[in-house]
């Protein structure tokens, strides 16, 4: 008997309703997500909350585009890019995707390390164990049943909602900050904005979601349900982000803005839970990290192999699909090994990975937009003007921010004293 048959009935109903869209959104709150939102709250209080509504909009728009492309064509994103733009373009994009996803895999192993270091488990024990577990979980085909556990464990995010309420934050300020954009040339600020977008609308999600929609055999006929599920997933995900930021703003920033550099700092936000704060934070972070670490290397290996025309699939033997297995194993091994380098700054690297995501995102978006507006491919299912306006605006804004980020970082390097000072009053 399978695990799902033993669950209480309401939970079973829940799991039959959820599909690729919801799962993708849940994986999206990985170690990178948790730390980026925590950092945003701890360093800038409620100030960055205004980014969430536009991010939510962008998230829904991109995810819906992917689900639609998958349902209409029955092809994955990398397949479509290959067929429409040729091998060289696909190769370049895949190379970038591998780099970005490798940093994400690394970020999630760093998440494992930092979650367990709270309990004094050495990263030299936790990370190799986690890497081996993830590898076997997927290759031996037991991942499907474990996915349900990962999903259920996502309820630990509710801890942030409770913490945010108990800690009695300034709801008026947070409501106001959610609709009032604040701009700053501070590189740390720009970097966090790019990171927030990058972690919420991560490039790997576009490939993963579309592949999952195709895999599930969703067609145009049952696409309407899929769309609802995608939207619900995105809303839940953004709500979690909102409460993490608020909890960190009230729990950390109101006592003086500071940069989070360790899991101990980040767990402070859950202080209302007293001695259980560490446990809750650690459990949530560990689950999120393992969940994403199981999906990311696999999704990357699939995207790359499909785009470049190599055989792929965990049901194939090593000899049949060597590129697939090497890439998959390589991503896990390298991602885990980097974290073990002595003195590796876990939290800083996790945040940096999200910035890499944010920089790659507009380029993935450009390809998606050209595909989804191709009537030969999508027939009557091309984008509406509303969608195109939002998506192209995001592309322009994101590229603009990347340029600003680059400029700000360069200025920081050459004129360290010219850093703009922004007011940080609680």
């Amino acid at each position, binding site marked *: 008997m399978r695990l799902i048959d033993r669950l209480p009935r309401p939970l079973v109903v829940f799991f039959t309703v959820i599909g690729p869209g919801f799962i993708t959104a849940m994986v999206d709150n990985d170690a990178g997500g948790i730390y980026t939102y925590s950092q945003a709250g701890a360093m800038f209080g409620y100030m960055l909350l205004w980014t969430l509504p536009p991010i939510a909009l962008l998230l829904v728009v991109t995810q819906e585009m992917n689900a639609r492309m998958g349902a209409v064509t*029955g092809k994955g994103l990398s*397949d479509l890019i*290959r*067929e429409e733009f040729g091998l*060289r373009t696909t*190769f370049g994009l895949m190379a970038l995707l591998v780099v970005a996803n490798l940093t994400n895999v690394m970020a999630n192993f760093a998440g494992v390390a930092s979650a367990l270091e709270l309990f004094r488990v050495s990263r030299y024990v936790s990370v190799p164990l986690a890497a081996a577990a993830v590898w076997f979980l997927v290759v031996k085909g037991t991942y499907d049943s474990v996915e349900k556990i990962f999903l259920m464990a996502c309820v630990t995010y509710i801890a942030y909602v409770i913490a945010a309420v108990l800690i009695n934050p300034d709801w008026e300020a947070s409501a106001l900050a959610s609709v009032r954009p604040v701009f700053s040339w501070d590189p740390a600020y720009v970097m966090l904005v790019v990171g927030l977008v990058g972690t919420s609308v991560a490039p790997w999600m576009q490939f993963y979601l579309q592949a999952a929609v195709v895999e599930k055999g969703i067609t145009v006929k049952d696409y309407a349900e899929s769309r609802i599920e995608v939207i619900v997933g995105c809303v839940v995900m953004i709500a979690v982000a909102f409460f993490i930021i608020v909890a960190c703003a009230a729990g950390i920033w109101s006592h003086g803005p500071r940069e989070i550099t360790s899991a101990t700092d980040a767990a402070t936000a859950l202080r209302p839970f007293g001695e259980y704060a560490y446990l809750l934070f650690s459990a949530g972070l560990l689950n999120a990290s393992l969940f994403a670490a199981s999906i990311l290397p696999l999704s990357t290996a699939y995207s790359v192999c499909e785009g*470049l*025309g190599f055989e792929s699939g965990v049901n194939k033997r090593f000899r049949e699909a060597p590129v697939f297995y090497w890439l998959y194993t390589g991503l896990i091994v390298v991602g885990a090994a980097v974290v073990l380098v002595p003195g590796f700054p876990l939290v800083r690297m996790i945040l940096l990975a999200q910035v890499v995501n944010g920089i790659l995102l507009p380029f993935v978006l450009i390809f998606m937009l050209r595909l989804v507006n191709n009537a030969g491919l999508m027939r009557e299912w091309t984008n509406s003007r509303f969608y195109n306006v939002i998506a192209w605006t995001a592309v322009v804004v994101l590229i603009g921010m990347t340029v600003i980020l680059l400029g700000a970082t360069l200025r920081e390097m050459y004129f360290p004293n010219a850093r703009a000072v922004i007011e940080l009053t609680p």
Partner: protein
Amino acid sequence: MASNLLFLTELMGMRVCDVKGRRLGRIRDACLAPRVDKVRIDQFLVGGEWNWWIARHDQISSISLDGIRLRDEQLVPYHDDVWTLRMARDLLDKQIIDAKGRKVVRVNDITFELNRAGDHDELWVLEVDVGMRSVVRRLCQGILPPRLVRRLMVRIAPNSIPWEFCNIIEPDPQRRLRLNIDLKGLEDIHPADLADIVEELSHEGREAVFETIDSEVAAETLSEVEDTKTQAAILESLDADRAADIVGEMSPDEAADVLAEMEESSSEAILEEMEAEEKTDVEELLGFDEKSAGGLMNSEFIAAPEGGTVADALRIVRENEEHVDTLTHVFLVDGDGRLTGSLPVGRLLLVEPTALLKPLAGADDVVSVPVAARHTRVAELVDKYNLMALPVVDEAGALVGVVTADDVISMLRQD
């Protein structure tokens, strides 16, 4: 690497010169006219300064890595031709089915054989290249000199599919006809393997395969497709009469399962097109709950009168030869069609044709299950009594169908 080979990546962008050696333009594509010749490149598309020209194969004088020389420069302007397959546009980067390796592959490059035909050079399509070598070749082409690329390639193991095993996926049925794409090569693949291939294809790829291949093979393949939802989606994408042909070839229990999964309007349209006898069988099964013995069973079985002889039973078997693939038992029924016994077919072969059936079957009660029984009960009985075929009876005890062990295995795997 033999020097009489040429790759599409090398051909693309190759310089074309006229009789006097003046440059006319570069190669933009190569076209095959399958109705004229299955392997010889029929036309070369030359991109000039303003537009594209067609260079017919007999206008070419020589082809080499240094370029193409024409012997007749009366070129016609290019217009899209429905009778030709453009190598770069229609084949490169697209998925095709490799009938020999039984898998879906993506075309990275195409290998031509360079042949001297009398006084001019011709290109014959030899292989479709997949795998690492062709990926690297394409990435390097145009960046490094062609001869250096060729030297580098020697180090990487080749991976190519002979042209005759390549099955092109063309969604437009009219174009399939014009390009002579019959997908006959797929019909020799085992239906279970073909089902795996089909599951990897896009929606229109699946449609193309099921529209083109023989309906009997299509039915067997569809039965092997893992998920009933996918099966239903495939049938829904086809014309109702084509879908009816395929459903008619399927065993009634499987046909009923697929139709039950479809929307009512589509399944009715298919039933409408089916032949009367098959239609009644399937409709009867559609009436049962999917999760009951009635939903699992097949209404095709062989029943002999209990008073008959072995010769009678064998005659009935011969008259129903279409069931022979799944035949394991002959069931005995009384005058009212009530089940009274069951005989393994093998037993019939061991005794004299004149022997009576009833004593052969023995006096033991035959294990059966009512149509309304839950499917878990069916699995239990099959497991407990080690049955290959479990008869299903109605309220009056009349035999109405048979659940075979493979139905039970598929059911257990789906749960």
